[in-house]
């Protein structure tokens, strides 16, 4: 199973807790979390994978800002910030007295060090898009950093709240050199102890933890649990069994095993619907058929999203009618209700007829001698995707459209979309910021297959320059409207995160971006 990375596919980290035999010196329980894969490195400059982000971001490293319950950026290791009038300069004041786990100071140089590392071509860092048109980074004094951008870059605050832009001790990076990725040192509530590659990562409570400044954390002091053990368990079935035996007191659940736990009084089930993923169908607009917006709209009316929700995710997902996932700040329910095009085969048929498609022999639609036979590509290895494709294929067949399905590994599928040998593709993306609309759908699109649409392009460009969150959200609402009217892509669904914990687990709460707040977790006394 290819477990994918931050902006692409399925979240790969499941969480679990277990009370280990208490050691004499320990106060509080040990929490055991499940990792669905072994992280490739724990140096965030080198990776954008979700697993890496979860290990570092929840526990070891911290950043300048976090997103509060409403999705708005709040000061964390930064004390405050100001944005210049031309919106190109952002100046952060840092909190004094914050120390890395190795005892060195967290300061403006440490911030600068991280961004310099990302920009170093030799690191070939996958984080470059996160820093956008960053032009210069100045350190006027040890507790002040000033970012200067070539043009306003609105996604920056969300990006700063991601584990990829959290800070490592520059002293430790220099000390360990190439093996720093196996010895991460940050400012977070837990310190790195050891990593047995492929097996487990051990963390211990940071006894010198600074006060917890996050408003979404219940525990404002040092974390409750003494240790965290992250166990690599690749098989979902094994994780479910470990949950049943109590070796994991919590784990996230894949669609097929949710029913085993969801109605069992022995577990608490947490369902997070405020998620930032979207499954969608997109078009190769280099081909004339898909340049006709009536055809694209017909596809939206053709797809029975409720059937896919049931087949692919056992009902633990919500049909999506808008191009922005429901958990991304700026999602506009009003626009989606008004302009969304839900399942309605009759309307789909009418639109296709209007676009000139007439039934031919055997009911297969034809237009100017072209038969309605199309190739839909997607990525292999995920049951949910295979089942969604099957539903889509049968929905299209009902309209007289014959779809051929082709799936291959991500590393083959994704680059292949750059070639003009396909008609539609089914893709899934996870990203916490509205900038995802630009990255994917602004012409020429993420795969060079989207024709310029001046309405779409100009709105998206404008949204990316609005630094003030409420203004930006209004703009993103407009963007959702124009994307829906053009039906640039067909939104299908957003799947939920479902986690089961043993019933004695308390304080297991997720932040706005779906990360665990580890310092809050504790076990009820029995």
């Amino acid at each position, binding site marked *: *199973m*290819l477990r*994918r*990375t*931050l*902006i*692409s596919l399925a979240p790969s980290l499941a969480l679990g807790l277990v009370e280990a035999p208490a050691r004499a010196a320990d106060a509080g329980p040990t929490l055991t979390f499940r990792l669905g*894969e*072994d992280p*490739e*490195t724990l140096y965030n400059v*080198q990776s*954008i994978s979700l697993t890496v982000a979860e290990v570092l971001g929840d526990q070891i490293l911290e950043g300048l800002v976090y997103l509060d319950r409403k999705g708005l950026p709040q000061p964390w290791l930064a004390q405050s910030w100001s944005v210049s009038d031309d919106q190109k300069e952002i100046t952060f004041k840092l909190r004094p007295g914050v120390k890395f786990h190795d005892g060195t100071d967290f300061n403006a140089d440490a911030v600068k060090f991280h961004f310099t590392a990302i920009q170093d*071509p*030799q690191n*070939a*860092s*996958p984080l*470059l*898009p996160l820093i956008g048109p960053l032009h210069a980074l100045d350190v006027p004094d040890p507790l002040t950093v000033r970012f200067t951008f070539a043009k306003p870059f609105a996604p920056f605050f969300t990006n700063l709240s991601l584990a990829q832009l959290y800070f490592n001790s520059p002293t430790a990076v220099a000390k360990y050199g*190439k*093996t720093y*990725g*196996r010895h991460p040192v940050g400012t977070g509530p837990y310190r790195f102890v050891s990593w*047995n*590659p*492929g*097996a*487990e990562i051990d963390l211990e409570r940071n006894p010198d933890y600074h006060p917890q400044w996050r408003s979404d954390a219940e525990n404002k002091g040092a974390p409750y649990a003494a240790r965290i053990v992250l*166990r*690599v*368990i*690749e*098989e979902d*079935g*094994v994780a479910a*069994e*470990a949950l*049943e*035996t109590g*070796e*994991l007191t919590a784990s996230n659940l894949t669609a097929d095993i949710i029913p085993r736990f969801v109605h069992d009084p022995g577990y608490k089930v947490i369902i997070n619907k405020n998620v930032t993923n979207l499954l969608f169908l997109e078009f190769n607009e280099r081909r004339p058929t898909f340049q006709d917006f009536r055809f694209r709209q017909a596809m939206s009316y053709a797809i029975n999203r409720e059937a896919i929700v049931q087949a692919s995710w056992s009902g633990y997902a919500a049909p999506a009618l808008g191009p922005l996932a429901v958990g991304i700040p700026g999602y506009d329910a009003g626009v989606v209700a008004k302009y969304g095009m839900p399942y309605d085969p009759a309307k789909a048929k009418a639109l296709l007829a209007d676009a000139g498609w007439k039934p031919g022999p055997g009911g297969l639609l034809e237009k100017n001698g072209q038969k309605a036979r199309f190739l839909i590509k997607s990525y292999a290895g995920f049951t949910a995707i295979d089942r969604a494709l099957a539903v889509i294929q049968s929905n299209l067949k009902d309209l007289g459209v014959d779809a051929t399905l082709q799936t291959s*590994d*991500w*590393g*083959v599928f*994704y*680059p292949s979309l*750059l070639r003009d040998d396909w008609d539609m593709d089914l893709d899934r993306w996870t990203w916490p910021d509205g900038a995802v609309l630009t*990255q994917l759908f602004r012409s020429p699109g*993420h*795969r*060079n297959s989207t024709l310029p649409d001046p309405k779409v392009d100009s709105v998206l460009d404008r949204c990316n320059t609005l630094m003030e969150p409420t203004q930006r959200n209004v703009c993103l609402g407009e963007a959702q409207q124009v994307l829906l009217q053009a039906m640039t892509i067909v939104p299908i669904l957003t799947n939920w995160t479902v986690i089961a914990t043993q019933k004695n687990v308390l304080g297991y709460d997720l932040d706005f971006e779906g990360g665990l707040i580890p310092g809050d977790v504790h076990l009820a006394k029995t």
Partner: protein
Amino acid sequence: MSTYILRRLLLTVPVVIGILFTTFLIKAAIPSDAVVTMYQGQLSEQDASKAIAIMRHKYGLDRPWYMQFLSYTEGVLTGNLGQSIRTRQPVIKEIGYRYRNTLELTFAAFLVALTVGVVSGVVAAYFKDTWLDITSMTVSLFGISMPAFFFGLVLIMVVSVWLRWLPVIENGWQGLILPALTLGLIEAAPLARVARSSMVEALGRDYIRAARAKGMPESVVVLRHALPNALLSIVTLAGLQIGSLFGGAFIIEVIFSWHGIGELAVEAIQWRDFTITQGVILISATTYVLINLVVDILYTWIDPRIVVDKS
């Protein structure tokens, strides 16, 4: 004898190089590599191609496959297996303790297979055509037909989830029990059948009748006279089985979260991390060849009639 061993050891070199050559050919035919898998979809097309070009150059993936093969072989001869592309760590370090884990699992499973297989085969042969014989042969038929991964999941369900005798996720010796049983019991089945048939044959020989006629105790007849003669075919099969145990460990490791080179290889293949895959192949092939060598040497010890050809 020592020249024989030396010659056999030298013969492993072309075998291993041949295997590596084949893997490089396959690699050249497979679209996409670790760098593409890591960067595609993470960056804009332009940034991705830049990063991919830098990383490919760094790891020499931009050279033709035969050049990569030559420099890799050169590295191997000097003891350098290269660097994992995904983790940026030396391959030898990544394989390190996982190799020990896989060997542990293989030999634990081998002990299970040998003990269960030989004992039940001998018992079945001695009590030929009784209910003991029929039961053990029926059970072994199940063993031969059952896929290892399915048997493994059943064992986890029964032993860990229902009976709660053993933990599901455990790295120590407790974690070794279930995977070793799964692998060992499955491989015990063919051993039991071969042990039975060769024991049946041995027990029917004249020298057995002679031994019994001399009034020897049954235990001596069976264990000293019949078993050593039946041993040759058992050892032949057992030798082959160590190899298949080693291969079977790959699947079992994933099911039981046993952190061996099989689990590493599966992960590496998914990520197209070829330096790791090649390292695992190299180590496995060498191990396989060495095990076979040991088995061949064992032959001469078990059956003195087999002599190493001196010519």
